């Protein structure tokens, strides 16, 4: 690359290479790993789950039971009486602010972190 980059160019390039990973660390660290999950049924708080206490939990909704699994600091839907199974496809939730909901069965779960930087994370 001789002749392509001057000494000043190297300086800018080096600064950019330091800056970019820093940005990922600063902005992609979300609200940190969650400590607990809150479960709502029909818009009302229904339970608070400790994410470090592994368990399976049936949450009764209008259509039947939605099954939640808590394991290794994460939570997910594993079964639900709804049609689309959007809640199951949402997969594991671990970071503060992450949400999965089964709208037909009126069950939603949100991970809460100590540092709630985000109300919600959308994809």
């Amino acid at each position, binding site marked *: 690359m001789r002749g*392509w980059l*001057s000494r000043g160019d190297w300086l800018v390039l080096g600064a950019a290479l330091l800056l970019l990973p820093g940005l990922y660390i600063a902005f992609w660290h979300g609200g940190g790993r969650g400590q607990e999950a809150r479960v709502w049924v029909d818009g009302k708080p229904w339970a608070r789950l400790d994410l470090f206490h592994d368990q399976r939990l049936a949450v009764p909704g209008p259509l039947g039971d939605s099954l939640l699994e808590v394991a290794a600091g994460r939570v997910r839907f594993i079964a639900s009486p709804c049609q689309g199974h959007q809640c199951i496809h949402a997969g594991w939730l671990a970071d503060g602010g992450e949400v999965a909901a089964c709208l037909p069965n009126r069950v939603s779960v949100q991970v809460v972190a100590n540092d709630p930087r985000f109300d919600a994370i959308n994809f």
Partner: protein
Amino acid sequence: MSHTLQTTREDHLVAWFTALAITIHIAESALPSPLPGVKPGLANVITLIVLCRFGWRLAAWVALLRVLIGSVLLGTFLSPTFFLSATGALASVAALGLGWAISRGLPGWALGPLGYGLLAALAHMTGQFWAAYTLFIPHPALLHLYPPLMTLAAVLGLTGGILTRSVLTRLNTGSDAPISMSRQQ
């Protein structure tokens, strides 16, 4: 071409280069974009060429006029797109001014096209992103987009710098020597 440019008055230079930049700007606006706020920034190559050959003042004119007139021609003047684009252009012109001042004050650390291209792209993305965040979508989730957008900006800025360098090399009539910053002062 270089002969004509070297012997024309400064405002004629600005007009010619701005016209060229606007043409590229409009052609580029027809390209589909993978992500909002991301485009190759080919029009900025013109800004970098003007910067390297004629200095920061002319480059600033070309960059800002291009965004203004380009938006009038595309019908986005005073729309959100325009404010994002204008904030980005202001930020990149400011960053190029800083790089230019360093290049003149400390010749040993003078920047070349790649350094300027990278600096301009990162500054443009930062300006545009913060305008989007503060003016239009003040949602914290938007911040997640900032690191990948900056990564794309860095890649596209370096690409623009490489293009600028090869154009400058050809403008210097076959000479492969590094571009002298004070050549056309």
